[in-house]
């Protein structure tokens, strides 16, 4: 089996590797041999996912913070707004953006599996897919957010969104205080992956290595 750079490189050492590694590779090879799919298609899909990161979401948020018209478009048609910024999220999956305000803080989950706006944000964090998050955030969201280091004011209500169907959700966090005069790029750098899910909020002062 020839390996071509990043997209089909080596496997983990045998003693650490899941038995499913060889099974899915076997399936891949056999399907390619049968002409059901091609190596190029698989590699293109790997590249598609690698190209998608939460920074796409950070750019959508930063633009929405500086441009009220864009914010309206993000809230009313997230897929089209993403396309405006060069993020191709076309497909049958629909997207919706929920806005954090002084009155409401939003947090996203998929209790039944791991639905997530992958076509915009890439892969979800491991914790998002965990049984513990899926089970607890719907029933005790304030406790879960506290675990993430986020304490909300008592008078701010929480809205949990369980992505059970054909919509995938992104959170539009509030723009932090003290960010007047920041460029769009500087604003985007304040937006963390977790603030797009609702387990974090952006802060005006960020440590450089914070995810």
């Amino acid at each position, binding site marked *: 089996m020839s390996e071509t750079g990043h997209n089909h490189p080596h496997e983990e050492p045998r003693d650490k590797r899941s038995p499913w590694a060889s099974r899915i590779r076997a399936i891949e090879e056999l399907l390619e041999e049968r002409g059901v799919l091609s190596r190029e298609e698989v590699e293109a899909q790997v590249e598609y996912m690698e190209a998608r990161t939460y920074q796409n979401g950070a750019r959508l948020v930063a633009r929405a913070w500086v441009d009220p018209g864009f914010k309206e478009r993000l809230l009313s048609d997230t897929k089209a707004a993403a396309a405006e910024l060069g993020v191709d999220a076309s497909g049958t999956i629909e997207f919706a953006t929920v806005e954090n305000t002084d009155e409401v803080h939003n947090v996203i989950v998929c209790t039944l599996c791991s639905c997530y706006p992958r076509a915009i944000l890439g892969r979800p964090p491991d914790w998002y897919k965990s049984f513990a998050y899926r089970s607890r955030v719907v029933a005790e*969201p304030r406790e879960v957010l506290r675990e993430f280091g986020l304490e909300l004011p008592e008078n701010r209500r929480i*809205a949990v969104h369980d992505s059970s169907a054909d919509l995938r959700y992104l959170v539009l966090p509030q723009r932090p205080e003290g960010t007047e005069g920041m460029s769009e790029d500087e604003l985007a750098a304040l937006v963390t992956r977790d603030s797009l899910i609702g387990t974090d909020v952006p802060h005006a002062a960020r440590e450089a290595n914070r995810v």
Partner: protein
Amino acid sequence: MIRPAAGARFAPGDPVQVRDIEKEGHVRTPDYTKGKPGWIAEVLGAFPNPEGLAYGGDGLPDMPLYKVGFRQADLWEGYGGPPEDALFIDIYEHWLEPGEHGGEEKRP
């Protein structure tokens, strides 16, 4: 609304209740919502039914899908947060029945 939903049974603001039934096989209505009272937050449109799609069917006819809101206090006994805390979930029409009016004033 994301997609047109001609013939949608419910409209935004309608009180609804999730049907408390057992159903074998693949469903997208979680147990924690069954039998609980909520309201229609949004009509999302009509989508193919996942219960049909999951077994190789075409999931047609399209089924209206709703964003349904619940007070957390109605979902969880002893819920520890403020009464305004809410949960929203996307539920297909065949899982919903009309709820009782008079719950609106409690809605966050």
